[in-house]
């Protein structure tokens, strides 16, 4: 005698994000700490030395935050106008910043007053950086010029006037003290050598350039401008390598993860995307509340700092390994092992008489009802609120099972207003789900057949039916649109596919090939 076979609940593949190593890595951050700055956060720079403080440039101030403090460790407020681009020197001792008032200020990190003021630019200075020998400063300005300054003498060394629009980004080489690159709103990137008085390499980005990044090896250069992120090979004379278009608004900031394996780009579309630098595929995505202007990544990816247009600085710290464990431990808190083995590990003695107990099959509530052929009750059980919302696949499986047994009509019939509206509510929620539609559409037809005589008697049911009708009309519209698009795509594919002749034997007629589309995805396989 076989036992009752429970209703099979279809397991659908999970839709949405795939779980990869990357997602696990980038999701392993704590809830963000949010700090309100006075204005839009335009620049974030991490100190290269030990405590890895970071300078946040916002409005007329530069705040320096410690790695875990929410209050600024230090602030520089002696700016007459909006400050730009506060950057640390490679020893972490000095900080340089541009300003709207065209003056470049150099600060000692421990002091308060500017050590040096470099005057010479005629318009706002948006770009400042130290060269790798630590004695010079690179600045770029809205007056289309970029200049090199000597720190000890506070004098201007060279001025380059090759750009034809605002210079909004620039970066110095970490390996060579004479090389630096600037990007401008004239769509070009220019590589300068301080030993000659003109640029040595020019690359066309195609969009106003917003941000630049050099790989640690300095063979590759990444530029961001417009919606594009482009990678250039400097060793091949500035040949474009890849062009990425993953954002739908201007990309404002670029950053490299500490091991150089991942590239991060932040954009006004409020997303930060993480790329794999070997194949330049997006492996992860962060969402933020507002448009992002600046992005900083602490060494070892310990924290991600993001500055937004609404002046909010969002800091995410990486979870420490203990914390990760703790949280997972809390989730899996269950009775102790001995609770389960209690009495189970008893070894019978020699003359004990063993009474074997038949193993009782555990059945779900709806299965118990189905076993007794109580079809209406089984459907009621499957329509209980929790099941209906959390596990609609169970409800659908029960409806399918009832249909298979040929008793769905009996189960659906004879419901009162509450029961019917519950049922209709479920249908409105799940009818157009492609996973459930094949089962629910016949069931809906059946319901309409059964209850057509009571339409107009109950306002509750009428509202639900109206909703159902609206839903179906909308869905039919979508389907028509989709078919149109499909038709268009078909013509495009056919015209682009090359025609190939089939090798034919002597007797058989020559045939034009109708090669099957190898790309058509099969139905989702499902492991059990």
């Amino acid at each position, binding site marked *: *005698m*076989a*036992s*009752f*076979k*429970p*209703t*099979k609940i*279809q397991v659908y*593949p*999970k839709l949405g994000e*795939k*779980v*990869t190593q990357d997602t696990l890595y980038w999701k392993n951050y704590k809830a963000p700490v949010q700090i309100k700055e006075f204005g839009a956060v335009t620049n974030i720079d991490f100190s290269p030395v030990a405590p890895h403080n970071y300078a946040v440039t916002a409005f007329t101030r530069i705040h320096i935050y410690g790695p875990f403090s929410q209050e600024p460790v230090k602030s520089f407020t002696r700016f007459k106008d909006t400050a730009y681009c506060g950057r640390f020197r490679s020893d972490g001792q000095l900080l340089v910043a541009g300003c709207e008032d065209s003056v470049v200020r150099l600060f000692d990190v421990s002091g308060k007053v500017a050590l040096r003021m470099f005057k010479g630019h005629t318009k706002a200075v948006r770009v400042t950086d130290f060269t790798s020998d630590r004695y010079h400063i690179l600045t770029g300005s809205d007056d289309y010029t970029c200049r090199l300054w000597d720190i000890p003498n506070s004098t201007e060394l060279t001025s380059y006037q090759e750009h034809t629009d605002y210079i909004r980004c620039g970066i110095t080489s970490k390996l060579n003290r004479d090389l630096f690159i600037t990007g401008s709103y004239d769509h070009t990137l220019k590589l300068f050598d301080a030993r000659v008085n003109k640029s040595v390499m020019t690359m066309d980005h195609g969009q106003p350039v917003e941000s630049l990044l050099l790989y640690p090896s300095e063979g590759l250069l990444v530029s961001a401008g417009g919606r594009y992120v482009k990678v250039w090979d400097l060793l091949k004379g500035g040949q474009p390598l890849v062009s990425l278009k993953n954002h739908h608004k201007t990309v404002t900031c670029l950053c490299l993860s500490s091991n150089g394996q991942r590239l991060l780009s932040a954009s006004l579309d409020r997303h930060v995307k993480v790329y794999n630098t070997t194949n330049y595929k997006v492996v992860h995505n962060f969402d933020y509340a507002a448009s992002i202007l600046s992005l900083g990544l602490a060494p070892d990816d310990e924290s991600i700092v993001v500055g937004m247009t609404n002046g909010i600085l969002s800091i995410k710290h990486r979870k420490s390994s203990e914390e990760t464990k703790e949280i997972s431990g809390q989730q899996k808190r269950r009775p102790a092992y001995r609770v389960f083995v209690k009495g189970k590990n008893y070894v019978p003695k020699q003359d004990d008489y063993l009474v074997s107990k038949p193993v009782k099959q555990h059945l779900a509530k709806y299965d118990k009802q*189905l076993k007794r052929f109580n079809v209406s009750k089984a459907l009621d059980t499957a329509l209980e609120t929790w099941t209906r919302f959390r596990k609609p696949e169970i409800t659908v499986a029960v409806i399918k*099972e009832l249909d*298979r*047994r*040929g008793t769905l009509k009996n189960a659906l019939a004879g419901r009162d207003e509450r029961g019917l509206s519950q049922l209709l509510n479920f249908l409105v929620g799940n009818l157009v789900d492609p996973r459930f539609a*094949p089962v629910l559409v*016949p069931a809906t037809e059946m319901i309409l057949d059964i209850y057509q005589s009571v339409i107009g008697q109950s306002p509750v049911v009428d509202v639900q039916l109206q909703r159902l009708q609206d839903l179906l009309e909308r869905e039919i519209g979508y389907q028509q649109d989709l078919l149109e698009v499909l038709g268009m795509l078909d013509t495009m594919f056919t015209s682009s596919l090359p025609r190939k002749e*089939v*090798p*034919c*034997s*002597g*007797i*058989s*007629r020559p*045939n034009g*090939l*109708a*090669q*099957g*589309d*190898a790309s*058509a*995805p*099969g*139905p989702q*396989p*499902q*492991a*059990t």
Partner: protein
Amino acid sequence: MVEHGDIRVVHRGGSKINFREPVLSHDSRLLLCASGECVKVFSSSTEECVHDLQGHTDLVTGVLLNPSNHLQAYSCSADGTVRLWDFTDGILIKVQLHCHHVSVQPLSVSVFVYLLMCMCVTLTRLLSSSQGEYIASAKGLHLEVYFFKKQKSYRFSLKEDNKKGAKNTFTCLSCHPKDDCIATGHEDGKIRLWRNFNHKREYTYSTLHWHHSAVSSVRFTPEGTNLLSGGVESVLVQWRYNQETQKDFLPRLGAAITHIAVSPDGELFCTAHSDNKLTVIQSCVKVSAVIQGLVKGESVRTDLMVDPRSKALVLNGKPGHLQFYSLQRDKQLYNLDIVQQEYIHESGLQQFEVVKAAFDTRGNWLATVEERKQKDSTLELNLKLWAYDEQTQSFVLNTTVSGPHEARITAMCFCHTADSQTTMLVSASQDGHFKAWQLESNHYFYEGPFWSCDFVGAYHSLVPECCCFSADGSLLAISFQEVVTVWSPASWELLTTLSQPPGAIRDLCFGRQSCSKYLLGTTAKNLLCCWNLLTCTLEWSTSMDVSLLLSDPLSENMAAFCSHAGLFVFKPSEPRPLFSHKAICSGKVTRAVFAPREEMLESCEESSQWLNRSQLYFLTQYMDLMTFITKAEEDRLMASSKRLVIDDSVAVTPFYLLLGKHRQQQQEKQDRSFSAERNQLPQGSVAIKELLHTPAHVLPSASFLCSMFVRSLLISVTDKEKKSEEEEMESDKEEESECEMEASTMGQGQTAEAQETAAPALTKAQARELRRVKKLDHSWLSSLLDS
């Protein structure tokens, strides 16, 4: 044409055991049932087949215990004979009567009644009462009771149907053994208990209703305390007689109940089911044994297949199952549940059916397709892939693909390569596509390997009909109506198309081994074509109406079944067929398979060489499993069946083990000195049994027992003396064993005798003699026990 006098078509197992009601022996130990041309005797506790009572030459239509001797049974057959058997030993006692069609149906205690079935085929049931006073029959809407004493018959009629939609047609009936009560089952699931029917007018009946569809069998227990009923629901219902509100149920017996039998002592019930199964049920409503035959539905939708591992025949079994049937042992090995859903026993309900199945070469993977088509809803299709699990020794579900295609799957096959690590499955469907499925090792979501779609192909939006892989797996041939396309599975390139001669392709098959360059196909225009794939030309074609084409995986041979049940076995490279046979059976051959042999035959005759490596099994239109057998093989089988008579009359006791080694010598001697007049006496065994069955703590001392035991053995010598002089010469020790052994060899001896004399009609006089001697022995036995 080759002469083939030595190859014969024979039935091979799998005959119906649920054709007629099974019969339980008096002691409930044995179960008799009609099975094709023989009567099978099963042990009701071990489920093993104890004897195969062979002798009838046509379908056995009924089995009945001899009312006057409970060790004998009558059987009747469509060949017009009634035979009397000693079923415990498997001996044919006599053959009676020759008429055209005989069927034994009555269950009479006082008289043995048989009726000419040609007169009463249309009657649903015929039963006579316990005292043999009346006989009841039901037909259509009428119940007829005939009283022997009064020589009068009464007829009771029911209306066809009333307003409530009841269908009153009689389906079965049973008489109460003590009371005057007849229980009848009806089409609409009602059971009526008729009383007071010896008056034409004042009869009454009461109605019991539990079954939702027709009651197929009702039966009173011998004491008349309970009434058993069963039907399509596959639930055995036990009603208390006179307390009908109390019922016991035994649900989920697997398939619709067709017959119910009760043992004479009421200890065991036996139900026969529509899936060729007998279930033995204890009276406490607990299943104790299941005897399962080959399940045969109306059609085998999956092809016949051979499991490469167990060499079992695989085909559709119970609804939603695949059965694995051992051809060697004529026994079902197991049922694999494919659909894994609760089967609802209700007629007219569309259920999932397994429609296609395929094994890969090594038996590691099994692919199945199940489908369910309801009138006005879409087709539900599932493709399931099963992996063989070494630990559990069965198939475990690996991947389920719901909706692999949009329409019915027409063909499915695995790639044949034996050496490669990866395997490939190709399925072709009526939606105009064929898909290749491959095992994928890893996925972010699923653990372990799973199957996924690798390629979708189509050709001019024609419908693919058959697909076939070449022997080395390098080519895939798919027929699209009139065109055969040849693809390379490695690159999925269309290599060539073959479209001559015109005609829709019905069957495709690659040659094997040395003939692997040939591709064979049959067309709807009655042509058998052979293409050479090296030149891509038609090698030869012949006009032949082939209904089935298949290749032997172990040789180059191909078999083609014509629509008039002719068979041709040929090699694609040779013009002459190796073997041909006209009309191997009546009707069309629907399914066939080459099953590899366990050991190779060494036949040197040209005509039977094709049977050396594998055996050809086929299913006829009437779902009979048949095979070809050579003369030499038949002789060998006969010889082995003689040796293999199971002997269960002697329990294995320490004495048996002690004395067993003498058995061989003894038997040889007996064989030599066998005389027809020998009467084997079970006296020794009974004495020893008595000795052994007494609990040890009540036995007297061993020394006392010993002398008694030896004395008991010594007496047997005197008994022997009168009978055979030869045995006198045997040593005492051997005689000790004699008394033990004789009983055990009796069965064999008599079987041998029966077979020697071919038609062993023991005369009545002889039988009486036998009984007399037996009686005499028993009196002697008691004297022994007294001493």
